[in-house]
């Protein structure tokens, strides 16, 4: 594992993503769902919404870093609001 140059922050980052994926997999098996059509006018399942959230969050973080450049944790707050919006309306 040395060659992968692990650090604690990146490890936590991947652990969070992995546990999100596992949680959503278990949810999908335990509680099957019908896809729904939201404001993007595309059919989405919970997994799709998670993907849209994660991808969008990456861009929100980059935008914050590029435009504001300080107080990076605040970008995470925006990401959470964005996530709630995606799961509510998309």
């Amino acid at each position, binding site marked *: 594992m040395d060659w992968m140059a692990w*650090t604690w922050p990146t490890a936590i980052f991947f652990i969070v993503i992995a546990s999100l994926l596992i949680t959503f997999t278990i949810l999908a098996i335990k509680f099957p769902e019908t896809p729904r059509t939201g404001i993007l006018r595309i*059919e989405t399942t919970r997994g799709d919404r998670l993907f849209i959230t994660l991808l969008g969050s990456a861009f929100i973080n*980059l935008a914050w870093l590029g435009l504001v450049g300080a107080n990076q944790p605040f970008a995470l707050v925006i990401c959470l609001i964005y996530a709630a919006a995606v799961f509510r309306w998309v």
Partner: protein
Amino acid sequence: MEKTVNQKAWFLVLPVLLLVAFSAVIPLMTVVNYSVQDTFGNNQFFWAGLEWFEEMLASERMWDALGRQLMFSGIILAIEVPLGIFVALNMPKSGFWSSFCLVLMSLPLLIPWNVVGTIWQIFGRVDIGLLGHTLDALGINYNYTQDTVAAWITIVVMDVWHWTSLVALLAYAGLKSIPEAYYQAAKIDQASRWKVFRYIELPKMMGVLMIAVLLRFMDSFMIYTEPFVVTGGGPGNATTLLSIDLVKMALGQFDLGPAAAFSIMYFLVILLISWVFYTVMTNLDKREG
């Protein structure tokens, strides 16, 4: 009522997942690890935090490469899509010549990318290349190794030569699927050629054209081999597209940290486009099915 989605089938793809983990996921994780650290070689790393991302976002070099990349993709789409449709409209619809055209059109698609690059690299040379020599004999000053405009024209024409066939073949498939009755109705209404195209052929081709545009955009956005073989990113940095710049940074200068940050941002853009591509395609399928 619609069927519920059964996600259990996903367990059947576990073997593939394992393979992808080794070939893509683990290397990608390593890139993420590199992007927050600095190294002087010898596998020793020092924490750098978000420094490289900040540096890359502020880097004129990256924005310039992105600008060139978008310009390249824009230009080739603006040429290849209308040209592909035009070729498809004028292809024979049946018989020997139809098959002949199809085979002929597929040929450029079968040539490996580095060979395409080499062909055009030699083709454009003033001393031995047919194109370069002819232009020179006509008194046109053409030298793709020194002149920015010539270099751009060469890589754009090369891409058009290589990939217009793909758009044409897709558009042709779309055209073939239009029932004869539509044309007969248009004839009864005395519709002009333009109106037949605008109200029958174009709407019916929309699905495949969407696929063509997205495929060509994504491919051209990741293009590396052909321009690298022809111009090597020059003259100066004039044709240094995103992937060429990335390789220069990662392997040429061995700046692993910045290159990793750059790769991740590049990857995110590609991921976004792929997702749009996938969504559009599956939704088209559902609408048609």
